[in-house]
C-alpha cells in the first residue's frame, strides 16, 4: 500500500467521520429532513423517532438511559450547561466549585465566569503524571461545595483520571460530579454509574461522528436539576432549547454504536501503534521525554518533548504530518501549554513538545514513516540549535543566566 500524504495524527483535535456514520446521516439530510419537534405530520414523527433511538444508543455507550441524554451543539456547550446550570439551580445550597488546573478551557472559563458572580472555585493541581489525586479532591470539599468537575482524559497529554475514586468522594460528600468525558468515551470503557457521575459531557466529532453535535448526560436517579443557559421553545425537557440537529444526532448515535462494538479491539490496535511510535522514536532520538503517565493514558495519545528543539519548528519540519504542539508559538498567547506547566514540565520542555494523536484509521506504514521523519528532522534542528551544541560541549543550558525578552 502506498502512503498517502499528508498523514493525519491529530486525533485528539478531531477525528475523521467514519463512512458508516456518513451513510447513516445522509437520509436525514435528504428525504427525512423533518423537524423533530413537528408533532402534526410524518416528517416530524420520523425525525423524532430517529432522535429517540439515538438517545438510547448514545446512552448505552456510557451505561445511561436514553432519557438522561440532552443534545447540545458540542462539548463546550455541554460543559457550560453542566457547570453554569448546576451553579445557578443550586446556588442557595452553596457557592463553591472544585475543578482542576488541567481542565479544558470550556470548563475553566465557565468557572471563571461564575467567579465573577460570587462563586468560589478551587483549582486543584495535578501530580507529575498529570493526574488528580482523589484525596486532594476530598480535602478541597467544604459545606458550600455544590459541584466538582474533573475530566476523564486530558486532551493534551491523554492521561486518564481516577474518576471512579473521585466520584465516590464527591458522592459521599453530597456534591454533584461533572465529568468532561469527551476525549475518553468511545476509546476507553466508561460507565456513569461506576464513576458516580451526575453530569457527563460528550462530543460526537472526537469519536468519528460529525462536528456540531454533543450531549450532556444528566442523571435522573437521583434527579439532577440544571437551569438552562439557552432559552426558547423548551426542547430537551426545557434544559436546552433549539431545533435538534437531526442528521448530526443520527450520526452521533451511529458513531457511538460503532465505538461500543469495536472499542476493545480498536483500543488494542491503536495502543500497539502508539507504542510502536513511542519505541521507534525513543530508539532513534536521544533526549526525549514522554509527558504524562504512560500507564494511565489514552491508547491513541503520545505527547513527547524533544529537548533543544522548538515545537513549532518541529511541526514545520513535519509538514506532511498533522500534529500539534504545546509550544507558545502555536498559540496567540505566547505562553507554553498550561497543561504541561501544571505537570511541572519546564517551560523550555513545554516549548519542545509535540502531540501525536493516533486513531481508527492510523496505519503501521504511517507510524513507521513518522518515526523516520521525526528522527531525521530532530537531528537537523538540533544541528542548528545552539542549546544542543552547548550540551554536546558539556555545558548545561540551565547554568547560563538567560535574559528574558
Amino acid at each position, binding site marked *: 500500500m502506498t502512503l498517502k500524504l499528508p498523514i493525519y495524527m491529530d486525533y485528539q483535535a478531531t477525528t475523521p467521520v467514519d463512512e458508516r456514520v456518513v451513510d447513516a446521516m445522509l437520509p436525514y439530510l435528504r428525504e427525512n429532513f423533518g423537524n423533530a419537534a413537528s408533532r402534526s405530520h410524518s416528517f416530524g414523527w420520523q425525525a423524532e423517532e430517529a432522535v429517540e433511538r439515538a438517545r438510547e444508543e448514545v446512552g448505552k455507550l456510557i451505561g445511561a438511559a436514553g432519557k438522561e441524554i440532552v443534545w447540545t451543539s458540542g462539548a463546550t456547550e455541554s460543559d457550560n450547561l453542566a457547570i453554569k446550570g448546576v451553579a445557578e439551580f443550586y446556588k442557595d445550597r452553596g457557592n463553591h466549585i472544585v475543578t482542576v488546573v488541567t481542565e479544558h478551557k470550556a470548563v475553566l472559563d465557565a468557572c471563571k465566569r461564575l467567579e465573577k458572580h460570587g462563586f468560589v472555585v478551587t483549582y486543584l493541581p495535578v501530580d507529575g503524571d498529570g493526574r488528580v489525586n482523589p484525596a486532594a479532591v476530598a480535602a478541597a470539599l467544604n459545606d458550600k461545595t455544590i459541584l466538582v468537575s474533573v475530566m476523564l482524559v486530558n486532551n493534551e497529554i491523554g492521561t486518564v483520571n481516577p474518576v471512579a475514586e473521585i466520584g465516590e468522594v464527591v458522592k459521599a460528600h453530597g456534591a454533584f460530579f461533572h465529568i468532561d468525558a469527551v476525549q475518553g468515551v468511545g476509546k476507553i470503557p466508561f460507565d456513569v454509574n461506576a464513576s458516580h457521575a451526575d453530569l457527563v459531557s460528550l462530543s460526537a466529532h472526537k469519536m468519528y461522528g460529525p462536528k456540531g453535535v454533543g450531549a450532556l448526560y444528566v442523571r435522573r436517579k437521583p434527579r439532577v436539576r440544571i437551569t438552562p443557559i439557552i432559552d426558547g421553545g423548551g426542547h430537551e425537557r426545557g434544559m436546552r432549547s433549539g431545533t435538534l440537529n437531526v442528521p448530526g444526532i443520527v450520526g452521533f448515535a451511529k458513531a457511538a454504536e460503532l465505538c461500543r462494538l469495536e472499542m476493545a479491539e480498536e483500543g488494542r490496535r491503536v495502543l500497539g501503534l502508539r507504542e510502536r511510535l513511542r519505541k521507534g522514536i525513543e530508539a532513534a532520538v536521544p533526549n526525549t521525554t514522554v509527558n504524562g503517565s504512560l500507564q494511565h493514558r489514552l491508547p491513541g495519545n503520545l505527547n513527547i518533548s524533544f529537548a533543544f528543539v522548538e515545537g513549532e519548528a518541529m511541526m514545520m519540519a513535519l509538514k506532511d504530518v498533522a500534529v500539534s504542539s504545546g509550544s*507558545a508559538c502555536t498559540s496567540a498567547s505566547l505562553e507554553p501549554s498550561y497543561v504541561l506547566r501544571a505537570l511541572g514540565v519546564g517551560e523550555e520542555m513545554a516549548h519542545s513538545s509535540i502531540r501525536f494523536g493516533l486513531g481508527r484509521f492510523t496505519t503501521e506504514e504511517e507510524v513507521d514513516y513518522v518515526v523516520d521523519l521525526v528522527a531525521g528532522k530532530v537531528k537537523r534542528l538540533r544541528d*542548528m540549535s545552539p542549546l544542543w551544541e552547548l550540551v554536546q560541549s558539556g555545558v548545561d543550558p540551565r547554568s547560563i543566566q538567560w535574559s528574558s525578552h
Partner: protein
Amino acid sequence: MAYSDKVIDHYENPRNVGSLDPAEPDVGTALVGAPACGDVMRLQIKVRKDGVIEDAKFKTFGCGSAIASSSLATEWIKGMTIDQAMTVKNTQIVKELSLPPVKIHCSVLAEDAIKGAIADYRKKQEHVPESAAYAQGGS
C-alpha cells in the same frame, strides 16, 4: 499558521548555519533569548581589519520565523562594515520575511543578536579582559 515563502525558504535552506571559534580575537559572539521563551539565537561574526564582516554564522533554537530571521540577518550583514550592520533594524527583517505581529519578537531577537555580536567584537578589540566564550546580548 501560514508562513511566507521567504520564511519557508530560509527555514528549509538556512544560510550560514554553523560556528566560529569564539576565542578568536576577530570573532564576535552573541547568544540572545532564553530557552524558557522558546527561542535562543547565537550569532557570530568574523571581522576583517578594515571593519568588514567577512563571515557570519548562526545557530537558533526557535520557531521557523526565528530561524529565518537569524538566517536572513547573517546573509545581510556578510560584506557589511560593522557600522553598517549596526543600522540593520528589526522592521527591515519583518518586512522582508512578511512576519505576522506575533512573530515580531523573532526579528527583535535577530537585531539584538547582530548588535550583541558587534559589541562583543568591539570589546575584544579594546583589549578589555577576554570575554567569556559565550557573550550575553539581550534586550
